[in-house]
């Protein structure tokens, strides 16, 4: 898809697609420049009160230790957006790549890969993450690798099912009768036709990864304090929920808008692409 065509397809977006695009762009910008806009340092205890309400000094209140929620939110977004997106992209690329190899390769390649993925599926993701972090210590790169690794098999499953079906279609058979190599068939005949369901899958994986990261952060194994991703902001302020503190509402709202935005945009894309 050329850049011009891509822009044209954006212009054809439905209302929900435009809303999704707006939300995604908003969070992208926040992830890039958020820390520079933060009024307070991310770990500074600036409020004497805990779970403070909305005020002119702390627009989004303060958290369970009296830190500025707005600052923490602005700094935390980059972990969620960056880690989530890069892990989801890595998972989808590896999963889809292997799926294409399995669908087009020999029966044995397919068997080996598929059984290997089944084995991976049977390992509980959080236990795996615990073991790996215990072995190597927590780092952002390791978190990304773990998140990606955990979601490769699911994506592989879906992509393989799509690719196997497409592999039987007449246009792929026609390409084969033309003498095309497997790589051409995979990249130019099959892949473009599975992009839309894969994007929908990508949206799901992204949400799951955000949840996995926040679960790890809750255990103290994720993003290390005083830095925090959006998920751990929710977790650490969980006790504020009884008083309806903005410290928990705002990060939750942030996650919701981010994931809803991603999915709205992805759902709108196929329709724009087909016109």
């Amino acid at each position: 898809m050329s850049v011009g065509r891509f822009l044209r397809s954006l212009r054809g977006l439905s209302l929900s697609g435009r809303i999704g695009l707006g939300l995604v762009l908003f969070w992208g910008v926040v992830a890039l420049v958020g820390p520079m806009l933060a009024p307070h340092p991310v770990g500074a205890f600036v409020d004497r009160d805990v779970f403070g309400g909305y005020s002119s000094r702390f627009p989004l209140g303060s958290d369970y230790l009296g830190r500025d929620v707005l600052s923490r939110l602005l700094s935390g977004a980059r972990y969620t957006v960056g880690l989530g997106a890069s892990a989801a992209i890595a998972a989808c690329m590896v999963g889809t790549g292997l799926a294409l190899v399995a669908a087009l390769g020999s029966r044995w390649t397919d068997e080996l890969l598929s059984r290997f993925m089944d084995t991976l599926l049977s390992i509980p993701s959080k236990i795996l993450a615990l073991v790996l972090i215990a072995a190597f210590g927590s780092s952002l790169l390791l978190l990304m690798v773990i998140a990606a690794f955990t979601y490769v098999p699911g994506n592989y499953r879906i992509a393989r099912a799509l690719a196997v079906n497409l592999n039987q279609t007449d246009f792929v058979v026609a390409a084969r009768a033309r003498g095309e190599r497997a790589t051409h068939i995979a990249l130019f005949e099959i892949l473009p036709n599975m992009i839309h369901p894969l994007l929908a899958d990508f949206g799901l994986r992204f949400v799951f990864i955000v949840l996995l990261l926040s679960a790890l952060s809750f255990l103290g194994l994720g993003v290390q304090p005083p830095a925090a991703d959006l998920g751990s902001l929710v977790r650490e302020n969980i006790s504020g929920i009884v008083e309806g503190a903005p410290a928990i509402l705002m990060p939750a709202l942030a996650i919701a808008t981010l994931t809803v935005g991603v999915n709205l945009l992805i759902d709108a894309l196929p329709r724009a692409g087909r016109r």
Partner: protein
Amino acid sequence: MADASANPYVAVSGLRVSARRPDGSDFDIVSDIDFSLARGEVLALIGESGSGKTTIALAMLGHARNGAAITGGSIRVGDVDLASLGAADLRALRGNRICYVAQSAAAAFNPARTIMDQAIEAALVHGLMSRAEAEAKAVGLFGELGLPRPESIGRKYPHQFSGGQLQRLMAAMALMSDPDLIILDEPTTALDVTTQIGVLQAFRNVVRRRGTTAIYVSHDLAVVAQMADHILVLQQGHIVEAGRAARMIEAPEQDYTRTLMAAAHPAPSVPERGPAADVPLLEVRGVTAGYGRIDAAGHPAIPVLRDVSLSLQRGQTLGVIGESGSGKSTLARAISGLLPPARGQVLLDGAPLPPGLKGRTRDDFRRVQIVFQNADVALNPAQSVRQILKRPLAFYHGLRGAAADARIAELLDLIRLPATIGDRRCTELSGGQKQRVNLARALAANPDIILCDEVTSALDTVVGAAILDLLADLRRDLGIGMIFISHDISTVRAICDDILVLYHGHAVEQGPRDTFAEALHHPYTRLLVSSVPELRIGWLPDAGSAPPLPPVDESGNAADLCPFLARCDTRVAGLCDASFPPRHRLPTGNEILCHFADEKLLPFARGNMGAA
């Protein structure tokens, strides 16, 4: 209709169905439709796809497809005006007083429920009769429609039936409530000719006997001539001509009606046969192909094609005909290397081709191109027409940039599509346009041979005729050899030099086209030819007069006997059910797979030989 009685049973006047464009403006799918029908009459709606026949048929149920609405006119069936009814009243009417038989019976049945449950469902839902009554009635209808073992058939599931039987079951389902009006939407279009004739007979008998009022939607005038009392010709949502069937067939008044009739029987367009080269362009020697494990003797577990040989000269067309499952498409796949033959050889210009895709050079691939039946799925929906055509140009000829663009323009011109179509995706094209692009992709390779697998089957007769003209031109101008696979013998006779008849994977007859107009043939060829509906009122009763054959004893090893034994009306006990038939050369020059080679093959039981 002018000659309908003063108080017609079905009356439609000023019917208009409209839909909305994306920009908000309305347009009419059909408009100004008027017709009327007396009780017990059959009206046929004829036209190309997009002419609005199905739209009118659905309107008779008070239904309009998603996005469309009935915006004007009145539809009266019996004493009910459909336009004035609400959703609940319409629901009470559908499947009860007005019934619909869809084109694809295979897709219309629920695979998880028995035939009987589905056949009586509507009658029970509408509370017309008790379950026992309904089952008794269904059994009676199964018998009337000529289904085997009507008493026990209801316990079976849809996958246990053939396409023709499912179509009859659909009709039985629709007749359960003795409807005021039954709508048959292209009920035999997807069937083989040999199956179609039986289904048509069953429909005709049951409609006549029960005095059912029916609307028959079809694109095939010859089929309609057998069923209808009145014919209504539609074009782009308007009535072109209407009248009694006999008058319409014998003396059509409008040019468009005449075009439709001409397209049904393509005129022969075969150029003079050139001198045969010593080495044929393509030769297939004793090819056996199939699926599953191949045993030591080279027989696959499920053989589809058995010991088929053929040869093709440059610039010639070989027609391959047979019913579905006869191995026609498998032949194309075996030649193209998609399905490596278990035995036998494919030779290109005298040199053997590697059996599978592996080992073939890029030039081998270039020289043999295959065009698939269904252009809807044979073109990558993610690519534009230009991208689709660009690939073979780059792949085979290394053409890129401006040179490729120039060649694409040439190709589009060759297949008579405007150059502006290049940037559209094939999902935005019509069926005929897609098939042209499908063809252009094969032509982009500059092939020596094109394998055309049922390229006109999914198209309307008029569009199909245009594609056939195009093929004839291409062949004359470019000297391409062509294997034309089809189930339609009239098409094959119109454009092919030689004809090969396949039955259950055996080549039962092959020879030049001219001899196919003569009388001496393999019994299967005769059956095929005589099953093609003729554009003549009263053809069906004539053609269908043969008594059913007694079943054959299937205790012997069927693989060692004549493949056509069970359906042959020429068979002789003690010979045909004892040994495999030899290959004979008939005096006409045709080679047939039969025990006989003399006047015994002349048609006697069926009376007429379709020389028409």
